[in-house]
């Protein structure tokens, strides 16, 4: 979607609601879910070094958007899973996956002129699924809505 704040809010809400069910899911773990929501947007490195620059330098085709797909995000989640200590691996894997998946899903609903989304399921398929076109990547109201829901969830779950 949109701005990263909306993505962070969505992951925060999902993890906070899950914390009602799982006692171990404390604030530190909610943070892991939020970090997961940042993974696909690592593709934004392209704003600093675009894909064509990498392609020209290395002589191979290249697209930063690879990390903004099912396969790319999964591998990045594994990196995060390796980084945490042994005892937290399973939880980190689950929460990073949840955060990254929520981001990819929200982005697949973005409004496109062609009505087709992006290659979200790469490398399983290059198919661009149809998108309902719920919002633009620049809609500011979205952060307000997702933020309000996040605050509601936070108040509901109690400060953990």
């Amino acid at each position, binding site marked *: 979607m949109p701005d990263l704040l909306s*993505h962070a809010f969505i992951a925060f809400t999902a993890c906070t609601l899950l914390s009602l069910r799982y006692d171990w899911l404390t*604030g*530190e773990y909610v943070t892991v879910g939020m970090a997961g929501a940042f993974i696909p947007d690592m593709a934004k490195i392209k704003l600093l070094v675009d894909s064509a620059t990498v392609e020209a330098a290395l002589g191979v*085709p290249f697209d930063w958007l*690879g990390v903004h797909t099912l396969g790319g995000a999964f591998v990045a989640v594994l990196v995060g899973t*390796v980084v945490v*200590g042994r005892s*937290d691996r399973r939880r980190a894997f689950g929460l990073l996956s949840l955060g990254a998946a929520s981001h990819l899903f929200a982005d697949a609903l973005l409004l*496109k*002129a062609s009505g087709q989304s992006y290659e979200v399921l790469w490398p399983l398929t290059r198919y661009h699924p149809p998108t309902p076109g719920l919002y633009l990547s620049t809609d500011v109201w979205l952060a307000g809505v997702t933020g309000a829901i996040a605050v509601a969830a936070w108040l509901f779950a109690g400060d953990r």
Partner: protein
Amino acid sequence: MLHSWVGRGAAICVLLAVLFALMVGLGAPAPDPAVGDYPNGDALAQDYDRYVGEYVQVTGTVVGTDPVETDLGYAYAADGERHTGTLTVTVRNVDATVVEGQSLQVYGTLGPDRTITAENSVGVPATNYTAMYLVSALAGLWTLGRVVCGWRLDPRTGALRRREEPLTPARTLLVRAREVLA
């Protein structure tokens, strides 16, 4: 094996190599309308004639409104060199009102002579980008702050571990403020 600096570092290198391979794989194929992957500005700049008569989806900055003209910024690599610039195209049949400087996404048929006959177009107000970068930076700081407060680096193994007692700068500040005010 993944519990030391070396093991962890090796595993991360392997994973990054896989990630890189996925990025190369995604960059390789040419646009394919059959899977909803329409040629964009980069593709048009690289080989315009190849796509004439086909559906394209481009995003550009509006530089003229009567007729609607957009500047498509492009960047592509060919023969080991990076090519960048802007390609100006005239867009026919734009149903929305557009103003100069705004961003416009167009889906339509590519004609010769740098024209696109729009089937659908989506306008994006230019000002929104600044707001988007601002709130995105805010989100980054928020999450980074939470990571620092809740997790620490174990210098022995290079692992991130949960803090037994999370840092609570906000709460501490609040308590201090109350003490001062009381």
